Every structure is written in C-alpha cells, then in structure tokens.
C-alpha cells in the first residue's frame, strides 16, 4: 500500500489502496474487490476459463444476476425467445460450475446488475468494483471506484481478481445550490453531459461534489453516477458521507458490530483532502437548472425542456454539423422548434438509471388520480424484484395500473431492447433510461431521455411536457 503525504482526491486514495504491482513497461495491476457478472458479457469469458483450465480465483467476491435478456412478462410464463433463454440458462450453469452465487431468473433477489449490489449492501465505500457493463459507474455513488470492462477483462478478473489498468485523470464536477421543484438528479447529469459532450470525460474519473450533490439521497447519487459513462468518463463517484453510511447500515452484506465500526473509521478517511488537485474541473449551478430532455441520438444532445431544438446551420465544424443534421433527420425533428408538445407513443420508466423505489414514487405521485393519455403505452419496470415488492407494499403498482400503465417484472427491459420490450420503427418514447442512440430502444425507434417526473408528465399529456406545469 502506497503512503503519501500529498493531498489526494478520493479517486487517488482508492486507486493507491488497490495497486498489487507496478512493473516497468506494464500498466499497474489493480485489485478488484467485487466483480458483478451478467448473462450478456460473461459466457465467452467463462469459455475462456474452461479452455485454459482455470478456476474463478475469488468466487466469494463475485456475484451473478440475469437482467439484460430477461423478459419482463410474468415469471410464470416461459421465455419465448429461445436464444435469450439459452443465454440466461448458460449464466446460471456457469455460476454453478464455478461456484458463484447467482440471482437467476427465479431468485427473489434478481434484478438489474447495478441495482442488486447496493440492495444487498455489497457495494461499499473505498472498494474497486467492475462488471462487463459500462453502467457499472453507477456504483461510484458509494464512494467506490466502479467501472465497466469488456469480456476479455471479465475473464482476467474471474481468473486473477486483477486488471491491468492505466490510471485515469481526475475530473471534479462541482454542483452547488438548491434544485428547483421539478428538477431532479437526472437533470443534473443530463445538463453536465449536454455541456461537456459525450466525449468530454474520456480518460477521466468524475468526482461529483458540492452542496447539491451532498443534498442528494443515495438513490439520486446512483442516478448521477450511472450516466458518468455517457459523459465519456469510465467512472464517477461521490465521496462517502453519513447519507452513504446510513444507506448501507443493516443491509444483508453490510459489516456488523465491531466490523461496522472499523469499516466506518476506514470510510471516513476516504473523502478528498483539502488542497487536492484535479486534472479538470467544472462547476454547475443547481439553482439555474431546468428539467432536461434529449432531442438527438446521443445523450449529449440535451436541452432544457423549454428550449428549441438546435439548428445544424449554426454549427461551424462540418463533421459536427453533419452529425447533428443526421441526428435530427433520424429523429424527424425540425430545428429551431421546441420539443414541448411533440407527440409521444411510449413512456418507459425503468433502467439502472431510474428504476429505484424513489423513482417509482416520483412517477406515482404525478400519476396518482390521473389517467395515461389514450394511445400512449406506459411501461413501468422496477429495477429489481425487491423494488417491485416494495412498490407493491406501498400500493404504487395499483396507482400505475389505475392510471393505465403496465406494471412489469424486473429487468433492463426497453433500455436495451433485447428482451422483447421495444419501440416499433418510427415511434417516439420518453424514457428514463440512459441512451438515446439510433435504434437503442428498437430498430427505427426514437428516444427522448428525461427524468421519471418528465416521463410521467408525458404519460399524462401524450406529448413532451414541462412537468412543472402539472405540479402546480
């Protein structure tokens, strides 16, 4: 373990605590505390282990769940898609063979891979965590270094619990001030990405700080960190504080008794030292933020809900201009016109970004006593089986059903559209998920990314709407 007297950021502290070896000519070897595995990016890695005759080095630091390919229809029904069924079965078989705990399709603990760790108390401050999934950045909300990896690296971690990894730059994202009503954590992260662009954080790890971030709940911090990758940063984190510790306390895998006290003492050492220097910095005024929505085909193409769609003719760089024009063509939108009032076919409330209980409560608060606009399909997909049960205990499912929304089983659903939940060509969605790439929610489908509040507003009006109008 390296000791240093130089003021360090929380990012550097976690990094230094996990360096196994540094050899000349090779990147540092980084130790991984927790490896999360899902059905899509792991089968080829397990095959690799079998081919080489290797075991999983630390099954007790590995956890599996099925989420991407999982249909969100009732679990009693068979999986119609045989290829998906085979992939889910393969995950369960691989976990059995290699001695890994797995929240399979029928487990009461099943859920989206970035949701189950926090629920179980497996994700704790100061840890390094990886998963073959770019939204692993979500888990940085705990003051941990959490990032997505490819399948080759999944195999590396399964076999060695380590990764060869070059150090990232540090990028401070300071958000100060108080959010106005109707403006949420999702709007903070969508505004950041709109400002820096989807490549703005490439090569960096974000540290979110400032009074607005401190004021967020753990679930809201998870939403912010989730979309770090959409700003190009492989990871994004929030230094731990009492909000973090209170969230973890009492969860199944949280330290208990003396171990809790020891952990807490360790965690309290993690926040960034006074005077630590970042490679890059940006400041956002929370009070100036409006509800955000994306209009284009990447998450950086976002605007305040009342703003007009940008005009490509005002862009100087030719490639950038063509890219914007291409996006507007795909979305079939008119430059210079606001999105407000634009027709919506589907509303999706779910995904690792916004499918936690507080997201569902926000949507339900708006939908309570109201009806979904005729002709709009509204899908509400809880992030895990536990969230689903909690929502049902609170009667949220009944609010959604009464309003005319679909209340579905847990999974990635229409965020990734490889499980039967998808848009038809030409359809528009307002979606609480994280990506609006061409065809992301179904071939030819068009996605407007927004918060659960803005999504619920669209469900009621059938158009892109300013939720603040409905909150009056």
């Amino acid at each position, binding site marked *: 373990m390296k000791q240093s007297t130089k003021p360090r950021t929380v990012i550097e502290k976690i990094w230094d605590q996990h360096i196994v070896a540094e050899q000349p000519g090779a990147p540092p070897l980084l*130790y991984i505390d927790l490896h999360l595995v899902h059905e899509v*990016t792991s089968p*080829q890695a397990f*095959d690799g282990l079998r081919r*080489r005759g290797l075991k999983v080095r630390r*099954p007790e630091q590995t956890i599996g769940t099925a989420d991407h*390919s999982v249909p969100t229809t009732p679990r009693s029904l068979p999986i119609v898609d045989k290829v998906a069924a085979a992939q889910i079965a393969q995950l369960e078989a691989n976990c059995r063979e290699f001695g890994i705990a797995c929240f399979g399709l029928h487990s009461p603990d099943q859920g989206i891979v970035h949701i189950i760790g926090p629920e179980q108390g497996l994700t704790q401050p100061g840890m390094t965590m990886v998963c073959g999934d770019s939204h692993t950045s979500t888990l940085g909300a705990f003051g941990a270094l959490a990032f997505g990896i490819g399948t080759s690296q999944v195999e590396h971690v399964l076999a060695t619990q380590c990764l060869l990894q070059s150090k990232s730059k540090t990028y401070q994202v300071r958000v100060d001030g108080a959010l106005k009503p109707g403006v949420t954590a999702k709007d903070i992260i969508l505004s950041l990405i709109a400002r820096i662009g989807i490549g703005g954080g490439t090569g960096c790890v974000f540290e979110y700080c400032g009074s607005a971030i401190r004021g967020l709940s753990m679930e809201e911090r998870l939403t912010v960190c989730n979309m770090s990758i959409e700003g*190009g940063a492989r990871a994004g984190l929030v230094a731990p504080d009492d909000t973090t510790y209170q969230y973890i306390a009492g969860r199944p895998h949280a330290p208990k008794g003396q171990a809790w006290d020891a952990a807490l003492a360790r965690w309290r050492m993690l926040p960034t030292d006074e005077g630590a220097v970042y490679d890059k910095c940006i400041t956002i005024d929370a009070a100036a933020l409006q509800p955000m929505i994306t209009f284009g085909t990447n998450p950086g193409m976002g605007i305040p809900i009342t703003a007009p769609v940008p005009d490509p003719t005002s862009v100087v760089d030719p490639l950038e201009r063509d890219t914007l024009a291409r996006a507007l063509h795909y979305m079939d939108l008119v430059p210079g016109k606001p999105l407000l009032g634009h027709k919506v076919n589907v509303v999706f409330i779910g995904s690792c970004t916004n499918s936690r209980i507080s997201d569902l409560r926000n949507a339900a608060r708006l939908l309570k006593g109201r009806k979904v606009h005729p002709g709009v399909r509204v899908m509400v997909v809880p992030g895990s089986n536990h969230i689903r049960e909690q929502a049902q205990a609170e009667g949220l499912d009944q609010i959604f059903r009464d309003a005319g929304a679909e209340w579905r089983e847990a999974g990635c659903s229409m965020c990734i*559209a490889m499980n039967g939940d998808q848009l038809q060509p030409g359809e528009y969605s307002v979606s609480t998920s994280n990506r609006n790439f061409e065809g992301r929610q179904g071939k030819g489908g068009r996605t407007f990314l927004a918060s659960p509040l803005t999504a619920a507003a669209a469900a009621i009006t059938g158009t892109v709407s300013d939720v603040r109008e409905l909150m009056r």
Partner: protein
Amino acid sequence: MIRFTAFESKLVPLAIDNIDTDQIIPARFLKTISKDGLGDQLFYDWRYDAEGKPKPDFILNTPEAKAAKILLAGDNFGCGSSREHAPWALTQYGFRAVISTSFADIFRQNSLKNALLPIVVPRDVHVELFAHPGATVKVDLASQTMTLSGGRAVQFPVDSFAKHCLLEGIDELGYILQQEPAIAAFEASHPAAVNTLG
C-alpha cells in the same frame, strides 16, 4: 494470439462523429454465447434494409470495403456500451485498424485485446484522410507510423505494453497469471470487504 504485423490497406470512411457500439453491433445480436458470426452483423441497421437485404449505397457493402482493413471514422469512436462484441464484429468483418481523432476508453481497451489497432490522429491528418477517402495507407505498429499515400509519415501514440503484446502475440491474461505471488501477498494484507457466498 497472432503477432500484429505491418500492413497496408485502403480506407473505409464513415464520416460520422460519436459512432456508438449500438451502431457497431446492435444489442439484439448480443444474445449469442459465442464470439462467432458477428462480422455479418457489423453496423447491421445501417447496412441492411427492413427485409435484411444489403443496402448497396452503404459503404460496408461495397467490394472495396470488403477488401479493406482500415476504418476511418469521426471523433469519439466506440462510445457507449462496454460490449466486446464491437471489436469482435469489426475484426471478423476484416478490419485491423480504426482511425479517429479519439476513442471511447472501454472500446479502445477492448480493441487492443483483439488485435484491432485504434489509431489516434491529429485533426489536420483526420481532415486530410477524409479528403482522400480512396487512398491507401500503410500502418506499422513497431515504429508507430502511418504512411499516407503521398508519402507523408504520421506518428501515432499507443500504450507501450499493449504494443508489446500485439507485436509479440502475447496474451495479457498469461502475464497477469504470472503475478500470482504479488496477488497472493496483496490479498494477505487486504481482507475481502464482502463475501457473496456468506
């Protein structure tokens, strides 16, 4: 792994910024449990029409592209998902290098593990390459040099360890496995924070 040798090829230009991995290989093709057959699905939704027939005007469907080994793309290539299916699909189609002004972090790492060379060039070179889309370019990883058809040589950066692995055909996992004593020593002084089996 096979050693990465010098080669020359025509460029296949895709003048679009921020080409994401959902375009490179749409998510619905990720239900496979193998690495095979992804080359035909590369850029599927740009490459095929609603009936699944190749669109003749899309560049990857031309005979020139099929014979080429270098993709020339806009800024921030490979952003989005961590799916390694993206470099698998690109290499199975026949690409050995992608040229851009920048690459998304995870895609760049995944590519280097699959003998797909991400070549970062300065803006002026990028503009020049797009101005001569049919040109032939020579790529030599050992000298980290790309030679344009006019004879201009351009240096490109590459991580020294990844370069060593590519040139020697070394697999990274083999190298990490050799670090076993260091890993065991680290684990002895770094108790596991959680036990998923407990």
